[in-house]
């Protein structure tokens, strides 16, 4: 798919006050005394690819994990396709999901790709791709298998469909994990440092797959250290510093003229 098409796909979603694919408002989270997220907001429309950058400890992974409630945020709102995830006050005073069914339904729409792949090690690659669609989305198994094979061909590991994850390279596992996420037909894809656990020579194959997803107009939130991906592929870059949004903007602009001292230093450290 060409870049023009991607741009066309993006412009197809009307700008402004429409329903955002995902919107987060004023999210806060502390671990003990340490405040990791100090009120972070974000809005992604259909087709947006938002790269979330920041040094380690900036809270970027926690932010992503708070969106699908793998971590429970202390406060803040998450809306997926306009639907608010309802929270209630738990017995210990912290907030918790009001309706776990709703959370499960929302999570199924927010397929996540993990840093350490987290493919289910006792299932073959094909079984990994079929498990959630059949059991969570209740789709017919034959249909899921067909789609799974097509996805595996697309990410280039169809030959390994009957392998168990420990028998594959990191790059292959991560491509399988991306295919597993795609098998859910998610509205938004969450990538949690998808290339950080890979040997340098395997990073390229995973980035190529992610780039092709961006080009076909997928909505993606990507926590990453890959400056090239952030600059060339994403539609927006969000830079977190000490639990706050330090800067946010168009990648070309951001990288050409860093708006803040922190971001300037951050990219300078990377270019060294």
């Amino acid at each position, binding site marked *: 798919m060409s870049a023009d098409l991607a741009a066309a796909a993006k412009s197809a979603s009307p700008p402004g006050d429409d329903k955002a694919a995902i919107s987060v408002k004023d999210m806060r989270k502390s671990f003990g005394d340490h405040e990791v997220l100090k009120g972070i907001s974000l809005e992604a429309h259909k087709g947006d690819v938002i790269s979330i950058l920041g040094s380690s400890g900036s809270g970027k992974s926690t932010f992503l994990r708070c969106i*699908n409630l*793998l971590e429970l945020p202390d406060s803040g709102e998450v809306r997926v396709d306009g639907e608010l995830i309802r929270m209630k006050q738990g017995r210990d005073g912290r907030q918790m999901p009001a309706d*776990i*069914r709703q*959370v*499960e*339904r*929302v*999570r*199924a*729409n*927010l*397929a*996540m790709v*993990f840093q*350490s792949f*987290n*493919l*289910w*090690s*006792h*299932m073959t690659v094909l079984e990994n791709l079929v*498990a*959630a669609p059949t*059991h*969570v989305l209740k789709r017919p198994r034959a249909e899921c298998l067909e789609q799974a094979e097509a996805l595996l061909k697309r990410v280039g590991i169809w030959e390994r469909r*009957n*392998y*168990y*994850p*420990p*028998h594959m390279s990191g790059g292959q596992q991560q491509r399988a994990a991306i295919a*597993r996420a795609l098998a*859910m037909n998610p509205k938004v894809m*969450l990538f949690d440092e998808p290339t950080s656990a890979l040997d340098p020579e395997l990073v390229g194959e995973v980035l190529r797959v992610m780039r092709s997803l961006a080009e076909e107009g997928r909505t993606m939130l990507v926590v990453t250290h890959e400056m090239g991906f952030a600059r060339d592929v994403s539609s927006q870059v969000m830079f977190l510093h000490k639990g706050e949004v330090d800067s946010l903007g168009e990648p070309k602009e951001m990288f050409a003229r860093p708006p803040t001292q922190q971001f300037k230093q951050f990219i300078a450290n990377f270019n060294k």
Partner: protein
Amino acid sequence: MDSNFYLSTIWSVLKALPLTLEIWLFGVAIGLVIASGLTWMRASGYKLGEYFARAYVFVFRGSPLLVQLYLIYFGLSQFDFVRHSPILWPILRDPMYCTILAMALNTAAYSSEIFRGALRAVPVGQIEAAKAFGMPTFTRFRLVTLPIALRLALPAYSTEIILMTKATALASMVTIMEMMGTAQKIQHDTFRPIEVLTCAGVIYLLLNLSIARLFAFVEYLLSPHLRPPPEQSQQIKPVPEVL
């Protein structure tokens, strides 16, 4: 050497093997059910259930199985309500049922600790991935947590089950003529304990080795993901060495 004596001893002891296996099988099976209950109590997050399970494990692991057996067989019949109960009395006056009960209660304590350890050892990432894909709790448990935990529990659990084979010998202390009881009787009648006990010992050893083999095979079946990938596996011997 008097090979006829050996053969007839082995044959007599072997005739008691079905009884030994019966005690073993029922003890292990009932124990497994109780152990699952205890594990669930420990993991459920209910304080009361957790304390009960802890106390249970403490008591049954901390005292000898023989004491537990005597307490059930000789001790409980002290209660009038036990002797007059139409349900309890037929069970508690029968040495066979009492042995099975004592073994089940005992192995449940050890097994529940094994299962608890295995559940805790399931990698967090595997469960998180299931959560992130929207799997409800029970589906997550059935598809991800349980298969992984079972595989992790298997080696320790097979050891526990072999300990239970050995424990069946205690049935002879409450007049059951299983293999140990039979060997005891022959030894008394002939006053040739070394020969008789050696015969029984060989049978117990073979029994335990076969059980260990069986478990090794189950372990092999359950762990294709820990074996080398398909194209290499032809050169690997299928059953790993155990015991």
